[in-house]
């Protein structure tokens, strides 16, 4: 039976010791997001991407440990549950997976404003570590959500160029499908 995501004791506030720990005993830190955003802005995109991928890598490892060998065969809903669960514990929004034809789109609602680049790095790190795939995510801000198009590093450059040219997520997906055909 596929293990479910269990948020029990994911974060333990030890007020007597003044510490936050997760279920593995690692120390955590509760900081305001706007300060973290300021820090990332001062550090630059590369540092922010590295920070995000490191954070996502830890998520991917936990998912892999939890699912074991079943991570290769489980369907989309299982990954939605585990990946979204870890993201929710971090306070990075509500995750859902979408399939646009053959394209995988990760949509996150309720994420802190301005966190799309950080989110893209976190998800990419989680997939690289958890699924063993080298991916890049192209972020599209759609109303109150962030849509992350999951692509290979080679295709991500084209999609990013189309996005910079003003194409919407749907148009980019459509053109990428035409390229496949």
């Amino acid at each position, binding site marked *: 039976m596929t293990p479910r995501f269990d948020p029990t004791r994911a974060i333990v506030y030890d007020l007597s010791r003044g510490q936050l720990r997760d279920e593995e005993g690692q120390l955590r830190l509760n900081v305001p997001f706007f300060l973290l955003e300021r820090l990332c802005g001062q550090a630059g995109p590369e540092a922010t991407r590295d920070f995000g991928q490191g954070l996502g890598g830890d998520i991917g490892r936990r998912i892999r440990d939890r699912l074991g060998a079943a*991570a*290769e*065969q*489980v*369907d*989309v809903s*299982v*990954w939605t549950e585990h990946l979204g669960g870890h993201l929710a514990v971090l306070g990075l929004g509500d995750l859902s*997976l979408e*399939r*646009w*034809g*053959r*394209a*995988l789109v990760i949509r996150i609602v309720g994420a802190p404003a301005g966190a799309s680049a950080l989110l893209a790095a976190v998800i990419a790190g989680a*997939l690289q570590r958890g*699924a063993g*795939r080298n*991916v890049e995510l192209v972020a599209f801000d759609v109303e109150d959500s962030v849509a992350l*198009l*999951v*692509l*290979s590093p080679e*295709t991500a450059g084209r999609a990013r160029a189309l996005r910079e040219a003003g194409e919407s*997520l*749907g*148009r980019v*997906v*459509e053109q*990428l*499908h035409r*390229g*496949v055909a």
Partner: protein
Amino acid sequence: MKLDRQKLEALLSRVQRNQALPRRAAAPVARAPSAFAAPVAAAPVPSLELDEPGMDSLQPPPDLGRSELDLDEAPPESGSAPVRGVGLLSHDLEEPPPLTPPPESGEEPAPKVSIPRDPGPTMAQLGQTISLDEGVGGPLELDEPPPPPSRRGVDQPRVAAYSEELPLPENAREELDRVRLGQSAEVGPTVHTRPVLSTNVVDFVSAVRSYQPESFLELLDASLRL
């Protein structure tokens, strides 16, 4: 109902012959109570008084409902003979019971019914045929009569007249074509136009909706192959 004279004479001779014989009491017959048995037992059987009324006034007992007295039948010796009750319905008494052919008789051949062919109307029905000569009259005058002159004396145009300068209706040519093609006003062609191609990705995705990945990694790999 009148009885035959011969039957009455035979009855008279039988009565006289029976008077000479010693009388025998009829044994009581135990019968199951029935709705029809009681009235029969209570019904008085009128005796034939041959002295008083004439032969024409003799009538069968009205309760029995029989159309004719069969005096040739032998009187029953006992009460076991089937007696039809007076409580039966009248149509049961009037109509004879259906005759069922014995099984060995087989099917009766159906009588042939010959339907005479219709010879058509008779000469009396047709009457005399009058041949009419073809008329050689002039052309029919279908034009309307000229309108009466106006009271004011101003000449008004005729109803059928129109001005050459009047503009044609917008749908005049379509109406003319429709009439030429024999189409009515209610029945017309249904034109199917080609739908406008949509650039919405939802329509595009629907074309590849048959793709159903079995696992998350399969979908992830498909997305990476874009």
